[in-house]
């Protein structure tokens, strides 16, 4: 049983993922080649476009921010034994909360508006997650279904608000008026500017730092605090939880609300950071991809951050490829992302056995 033999850390955590990524790119390359484009050009454009220059990095991390938030959201629920497919909807409703907060305080005191927005986003996201959680805990309504349903409901609600109460006066699209002047998260390049470092304009803003903070926070919460311990106990065994005096239903609700709040915070980056207004469908499926991010990151904060950056790079790099290779449409970008999830996320063991076999051959040779 080769699988049982342990690989050195670097092989397990660097070599294998790299190989998987390679496999994903090879397959993508074949498809691109079949479409009549040059895969190597595409790849170099992608890497260049994702990390090649200051602005590119900015965009990459900007997209990554969304994935960190949604990935964390999925992950913390998962540790409590819950499968939250509702990140999308929670992010939407979070966006509503953010907007209300911003418009309530922003006009008078921009800074206050920003804080109100942040609180609103987390709060509304949490509330939107609370309902399915409550239904699961008290009425036994299966959380997977309810969260799916709540995605649809959220989008309808958002659409209503954006052509009704929150509609931009005279606007043609389902979107809100612009946020009051000054109620926005400061861009990283401006921040650096203040520190005298000049950096090209890009949408990356301090919500990225907030995301990192959240990741660290989740790690600390889960593995360093009593609450986190109890949450994980509930996730692993309801019986043991009761034995340990932890209320399963209560924990279910709290965990989901944290999850919802994290999903809701996605709006910080998209709305408060970049769009400066509420848009229908600003979530763009980030909530769903968050599932893949969480599992690719093995539900560990650092893993999630890395997975999120990988996805950010694919988004940004892919866009740049699409700029320059007309045939390489945005759809092709999506396909590449899918392949990466498939190889790097789902087939992580693909190369484990061959590699560890190699290792043991090598070890035995040395022994002999």
């Amino acid at each position, binding site marked *: 049983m080769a699988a049982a033999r342990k690989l050195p850390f670097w092989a397990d955590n660097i070599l294998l993922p790299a190989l998987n990524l390679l496999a994903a790119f090879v397959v993508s390359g074949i498809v691109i080649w079949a479409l009549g484009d040059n895969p190597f050009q595409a790849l170099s454009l992608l890497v260049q476009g994702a990390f090649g220059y200051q602005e590119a990095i900015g*965009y990459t991390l*900007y997209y990554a921010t969304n994935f960190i938030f949604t990935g964390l959201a999925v992950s913390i629920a998962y540790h409590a034994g819950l499968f939250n497919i509702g990140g999308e909807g929670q992010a939407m409703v979070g966006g509503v909360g953010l907007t209300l907060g911003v418009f309530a305080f922003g006009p008078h005191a921009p800074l206050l508006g920003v804080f109100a927005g942040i609180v609103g986003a987390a709060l509304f996201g949490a509330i939107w997650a609370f309902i399915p959680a409550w239904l699961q805990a008290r009425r036994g309504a299966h959380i997977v279904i309810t969260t799916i349903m709540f995605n*649809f409901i959220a*989008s*309808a609600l*958002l*659409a*209503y608000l954006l*052509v009704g109460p929150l*509609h*931009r*006066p*005279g*606007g*043609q*699209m*389902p979107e809100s008026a*612009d946020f009051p002047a000054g109620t926005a998260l400061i861009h990283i390049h401006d921040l650096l500017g203040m520190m005298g470092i000049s950096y090209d*304009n890009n*949408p990356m803003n301090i919500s990225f730092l907030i995301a990192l903070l959240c990741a660290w926070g989740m790690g600390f919460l889960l593995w360093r605090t009593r609450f986190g311990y109890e949450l994980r106990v509930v996730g692993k065994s309801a019986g043991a939880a009761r034995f340990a005096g932890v209320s399963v239903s209560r924990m279910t609700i709290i965990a989901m609300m944290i999850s919802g709040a994290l999903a809701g915070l996605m709006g910080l980056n*998209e709305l408060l950071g*970049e*769009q*400066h*207004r509420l*848009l*229908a*469908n*600003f979530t*763009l499926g980030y909530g769903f991809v968050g599932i893949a991010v969480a599992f690719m990151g093995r539900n560990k904060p650092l893993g999630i951050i890395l997975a999120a950056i990988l996805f950010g790079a694919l988004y940004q790099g892919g*866009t740049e490829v*699409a*700029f320059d290779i*007309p045939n390489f*449409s*945005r759809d092709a*970008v999506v396909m590449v992302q899918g392949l990466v999830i498939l190889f790097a996320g789902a087939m992580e063991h693909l190369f484990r056995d061959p590699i560890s076999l190699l290792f043991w051959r090598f070890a035995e040779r040395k022994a002999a």
Partner: protein
Amino acid sequence: KPVVLYDIGGKFDKSFNEAARVGADAFKAETGIAYREFEPRSETQYEQALKRFARRHADLIVAVGVGYAVAVRNVAKEFPNVKFTVVDAIVDLPNVQSITFKENEGSFLVGMIAAMKTKTNSIGFIGGMDIPLIRRFERGYKQGADYVRKDLTFTENYVGTTPSAWNDPIKAAELAKSQYARGVDIIFSAAGPSGLGVIQAAKDAGKFAIGVDSNQNYVAPGTVLTSMMKRVDLAVHRALAQAKDGTWKPGHTVMDLKDGGVDYALDKYNASLITPEMKAKLDEARAKIISGELVVGDVAGSNTGR
């Protein structure tokens, strides 16, 4: 080197993005000047794309779609000596040209056609999403029908609330089926690609459908009664041409019946369906609208700046 930026619908939406592409291709065919293009995946990419091409000194950037309003405003400020033309939205800046359409006027005419053609005295409307832009089509359509006769029953549906509302021909077809089954015999759909579902349902039921944006008569001859054409192709072509011969001017142009910016489609595919009497009535109405004698109602703010 000119650039054309579509909106999320994509350049093959058989609708107004596609029209924009047609216009650009026509320009390319005439002048041999190639253009760059890009289909964004998200609102964020609107601004990203605009900036990118602006930085690479594109001489004219045509942004198609109301969604671009904010992005163009921001980027145009940042690059004051790049020319921008934004279709369907209004941005008043010294280096931006805004072009909007009076969809309601065109819709008025197809509404009249529906009213004159219906045998069941019951006509329908199917929109993609319930948003002001779409409401304008519906308004004009209704008003046009009423202008012909007041005794019509009028059924309307909207496909959904997510972007998939524009890409869900099945749902649209289902809604159309239900309308037809309830006695509607003509449906005007303003739902992008979802509209294809309506046309197909009409075909299956042997009823009529009215296309939108581009001329969709060819999609199902004999079934597509006519199309409410929104000549984005003209707008794009004009902008490109102006930029070429230096007549490009910033400011806001409204394209309406007068300058053929909107109209109903009449071609070999539906000639047999539009009788001379109908045509006469339509011409008369058109004249009245152009002369201003007949005013078609509109949704607040559609053709005035923000």
